[in-house]
């Protein structure tokens, strides 16, 4: 599933480790999501959307 997490993180001047700490996962998990190698759970997807104050579908594109 394609996502723009890396762009949003860069725009917020956050490191992967910083974002990981905010949503209680490891830095490796954020890296895997950004590279499209791991699709997060609904819970984590909502946590990321909540952090960036947007909807889940604004970050993740299920059609890709």
């Amino acid at each position, binding site marked *: 599933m394609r996502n723009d997490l890396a762009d949003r993180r860069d725009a917020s001047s956050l490191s992967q*480790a910083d974002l*990981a*700490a905010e949503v209680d*996962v*490891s830095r*490796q*998990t954020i890296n895997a999501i950004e590279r499209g190698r791991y699709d997060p759970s609904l819970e984590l997807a909502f946590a990321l959307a909540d952090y960036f104050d947007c909807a889940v579908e604004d970050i993740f594109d299920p059609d890709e």
Partner: protein
Amino acid sequence: MTPDHPIQRGQRYNRIIMVVFAVGVLAFFVGMAVDQTLAGLVVYAVAGLTGVAALLYLRFVSSAQLADERDRRLHERTSGTVVGIFAYVGLPVVIGLYLLDGFTSYTISSTIWGAIYAYAALFLTWGAVYTVYRYRS
């Protein structure tokens, strides 16, 4: 992420425990190689039990987080793959051994019977755990 974040602490502790396990296994084989089997076994036992105790403490008592959702999914995929390998490779082997034992002069040894019982126990356990999860879900 600060070094004190529960996930980072969990990853650090996990690495230390894996090193402890590795030291134990290494000591076991080195002990055998240098004819100090008992000493190697003692180090192996202490390292193994210490590692298990530490893992139990971290999992049930400590605030450190040993795994996140991706780790858990990796573990699930790994377990599924291993069980699949055992099922699709192991079952034909066991059936083949039964056939050899029944129709040729080959006799299944007590060691092989032990392996077959362990194999059966693995899948009986899997079935029991699966049944519990299925009824709870």
